[in-house]
């Protein structure tokens, strides 16, 4: 089952890529992700809790180990416990949702194309309902800002269509077999603007929008991340950590916002590899010191010897701090998030940042507990600074996705601060906050993506009146924002509240840090409410005029995240009990 959890998305990725020309490729991907989710969800079954009573207080639920390259200490060793299982489950859940999002988006686009075909034949064109997938390119659709009446907007776009058509027909060929008839049957004037939606890749990639490839890359990221969470071998952990990089780079680089994606993708790749190689050095120092690469065994033995503990922890912490990201190593994050497509942002926020914090808590803290204790003040100060800086920056940011991305820096600051506090309550808070962020921020990114797809802008000043234009969407956005700012009763609260508590508990200078964190939470409330004020309230902005509300498919994709947020907020007990079983 452990192997299946990682192998299913990987084989799914290959299958989707192999069948990328077929219209059902998306559903294969979604199916693979669904099966992987089932595999992860079934992991607690038959778990071995015997050693809990007998032994050192913690053990793996299951473990599987196959020798791979013994002379490098490389075993294909997977293991799972309460800490890694929750994160693996989150990864699998987000994987399923992202694949579904893609599949539904592609179906809808296909339906739009078909509908346009029909509609143009009867000369009664309706603007395409907004697709789920945020198109990467600029699109002359009917509902452009200032276009006024959408129907006339299409005709107004007429002069622009002649140059546009070439891209559009190229896209339709690879997207869907049936769409080919548009080229013959539909009058170009009417058909082109609708085709403009999937032609987002544009530019040099004239082969058009290949969403199945995106699904395949998502599955690859999911497989590698699951492997990171489940790895019980440090070398395997490093390899899996590295394996995340290329697919994510490709997602940002290939499917991102055309204006910024190159820079953002390169920045992401260079930051990440610098971090992961430093982390690798730390891991290998630990392996050389203990003579084994078995993560569980090293943790059980109390980590590396005290002589190298601080060195190991520093190397690992720098590596993971890049990924987490911890101020001042965060500067890749806003760029990558802003440039990435919606599903890319969701995975970045929901999964990749978790790799950093999981590594910090489980690997860095587990391998070098003494070093962690020594370095805790530095880490805590950086985290607190990060919280406040992120809050202040967010207050001034004019762009929706960038704002959400920067808020992640603050949230991860809470997680790191809680970890640095080092107490029982602190560790729980860190893990809890980690997971809560993994539910709330992806939801925010989904919503922001949907909003940007509908209005074609992410600028806060250009938005407004969503409450009137699309009440359900505005409601969900409000819900997610409240969860993100840590309203009691929602998932965000417990992690942040206990972080402040854990820091304050240490007393002394830590009280200052706790105060800074509390101030950061206040700033979070301020900037999220500011965002809501701009987006939801006020009079309806031209961009938000006539946009569609939440569709059933969207609601289905988002509902697990909403449900999870509520569940964690209202009943945090079972999750905390799971962490208690963890291998820390």
């Amino acid at each position, binding site marked *: 089952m452990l192997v299946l959890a990682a192998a299913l998305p990987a084989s799914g990725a290959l299958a989707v890529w192999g069948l990328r020309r077929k219209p059902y490729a998306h559903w294969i991907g979604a199916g693979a992700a669904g099966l992987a989710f089932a595999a992860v969800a079934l992991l607690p079954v038959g778990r071995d809790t015997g050693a809990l009573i007998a032994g050192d207080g913690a053990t793996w639920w299951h473990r599987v180990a196959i020798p791979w*390259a013994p002379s*490098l200490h490389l075993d294909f060793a997977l293991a799972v416990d309460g800490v890694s299982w929750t994160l693996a489950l989150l990864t699998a859940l987000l994987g399923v949702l992202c694949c579904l999002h893609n599949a539904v988006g592609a179906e809808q686009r296909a339906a739009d194309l078909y509908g346009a075909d029909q509609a143009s034949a009867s000369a009664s064109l309706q603007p395409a309902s907004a697709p789920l997938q945020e198109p990467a390119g600029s699109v002359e659709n009917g509902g452009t800002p200032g276009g006024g009446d959408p129907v006339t907007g299409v005709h107004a776009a007429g002069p622009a269509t002649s140059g546009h058509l070439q891209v559009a027909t190229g896209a339709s060929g690879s997207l869907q077999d049936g769409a080919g008839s548009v080229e013959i049957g539909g009058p170009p004037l009417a058909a082109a603007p609708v085709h403009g939606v999937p032609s987002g890749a544009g530019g*040099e990639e004239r082969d058009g929008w290949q969403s199945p490839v995106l699904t395949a890359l998502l599955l690859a990221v999911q497989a590698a991340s699951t492997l990171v969470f489940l790895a019980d071998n440090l070398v395997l952990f*490093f390899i899996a950590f590295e394996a995340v990089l290329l697919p994510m780079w490709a997602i940002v680089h290939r499917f991102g916002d055309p204006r910024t994606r190159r820079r953002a993708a390169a920045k992401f790749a260079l930051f990440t*590899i610098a971090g992961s*190689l430093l982390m690798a050095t730390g891991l290998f*120092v630990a392996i050389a010191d203990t003579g084994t690469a078995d993560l569980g065994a090293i943790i059980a033995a109390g980590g590396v010897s005290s002589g190298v503990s601080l060195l190991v922890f520093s190397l690992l912490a720098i590596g993971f701090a890049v990924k987490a990201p911890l101020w001042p190593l965060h500067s890749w994050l806003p760029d990558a998030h802003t440039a990435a497509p919606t599903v890319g942002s969701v995975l970045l926020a929901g999964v990749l940042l978790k790799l950093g914090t999981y590594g910090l808590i489980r690997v860095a803290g587990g391998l070098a507990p003494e070093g962690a204790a020594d370095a805790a003040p530095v880490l805590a100060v950086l985290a607190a600074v990060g919280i406040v800086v992120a809050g202040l920056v967010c207050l001034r940011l004019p762009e929706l996705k960038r704002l959400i991305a920067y808020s992640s820096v603050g949230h991860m600051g809470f997680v790191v601060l809680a970890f640095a506090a080092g107490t029982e309550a602190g560790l729980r808070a860190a893990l809890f906050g980690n997971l809560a962020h993994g539910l709330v921020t992806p939801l925010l990114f989904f919503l922001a993506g949907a909003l940007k797809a509908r209005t074609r802008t992410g600028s806060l000043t250009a938005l407004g009146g969503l409450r009137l234009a699309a009440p359900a969407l505005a409601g969900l956005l409000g819900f997610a924002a409240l969860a993100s700012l840590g309203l009691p009763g929602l998932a965000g609260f417990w992690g942040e509240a206990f972080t402040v508590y854990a820091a304050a508990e240490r007393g002394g200078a830590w009280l200052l840090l706790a105060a800074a964190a509390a101030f950061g939470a206040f700033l979070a409330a301020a900037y999220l409410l500011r965002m809501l004020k701009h987006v939801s309230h006020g009079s309806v902005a031209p961009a938000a005029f006539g946009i569609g509300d939440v569709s059933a498919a969207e609601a289905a994709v988002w509902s697990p995240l909403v449900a999870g947020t509520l569940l964690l907020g209202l009943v945090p007990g079972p999750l905390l009990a799971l962490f208690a079983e963890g291998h820390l």
Partner: protein
Amino acid sequence: MRAQAIDHAAMLPLYLAAATAAAALFTGRFAKAAAMIGLGTASAAAVWIGLGPDRAAFAVGEWHSYVADDAAMGAAALFAALAVLVAAVSGRRPGENWFLLTASAAGGIALAGARDLITLVVAVETLTLPLYVLVTRPGRDGAEAGTTFLIASVTSSATALMGAALLYAATGTVHLEGLAAALGDAHAGLAAAGTALLLAGLAFKLAAAPLHAWAPLVLERAPLPIATYLASASKLGGAVAIVWVVAFGLRGTASAGIVVAVLAVASIAVGNLGALVQRRTVPLLAWSGIAHAGYALAPLAVIATAAGREHAGAAASAAFAYAVFFVLLEAGVFAALTAVRAEDGGAVADLAGLWKAAPLPASVFLFAVVGLAGLPPALAGTVAKVAVLEVLASSAVWLAVVVAAGAVVGLAYYLPLARAVLTGRSGAVPRRYAVALTIAALALVAVSLAPQLVLDFTSVSR
């Protein structure tokens, strides 16, 4: 005086390669087939001998001049196989071409078994000498490349010989095992000077800084199949020579570690910075190859410290393993390039659209480039990096950080290379050498999935 019995089985791969070279000279238009079959047999023979018990020949007391252990036979098999690959992607060429190539491969096989300084230097010369002719294309540019290669090579050979002579003067022996035993109480100055000169001279073959400047020029102007050979088999020769000398002869000498550390750091810095500014494919790969030479040498530097000298065997194994993975990836990337480029390597931008136009060479190229960058899913490169970092992390953390920094810079030029292949569109691309590329791809995938195959024979014991 008693005549010594020679273990002919140990020499079998070398006999086969030498016989193939002779046959290639006289078989006229069947020379290519003869060379490929003969070298293939030699490779198989090397594997077969390597799987059996360790053998040795030409003993002086306990010390042997020629050894056929796992590492030597693994390297020998690789030399022969790389030469076969080069022949397979070479197209039609005059008969003497095959003689020269086979002779060079025979030099490599001899080098793999060499355990004394004279055999080693002669083998390196045999490996290099035929290349003076092969690298030279007709015309002014080709002649310039050939001359550059000749002068650089002769200079470095003289340097290496001088080093060997000084070491002989210091210890009175040329056997590597003998050096290891005698260097402890030899004249320190002589030994240090000899070590420095010998290693610097041999580093030329590996194109490690400071004797690297020939590589980008010669690789760019040589015919692409020969560039493939220079980047793979010839570099393996340099790596093997240095690893053998350090692992068997100088493993207790701190100055050797310092020399290697200087070479490694200089190569990593120079190679990466040089590659960053390249806009043409072959020079980019050549500069990055200099950086990779630095990564391969880095583990050997741990013998500079007393703690590191205890791990000399592990360090040598890591260096050898890195070199093997690296030359396999280099062979893959150059073979793919040879298949799709008719004349020279061209600019990086010329590779645009390769993914659409020629999927097989493009995927081999991509896999190898990703491997050179050290990223999964091309695990061959990742495993190589892990092997090096594991050794460095145990005794020279600062060098591990240097290697890591180099790899970060490396990503900055490998990613655009991969992007160029993946995006855009191109015109017609020659489609050839599909069988050779398929086999190369399978070999790369095999060592990625089962790295233990390589790690087994690259473990330099003793």
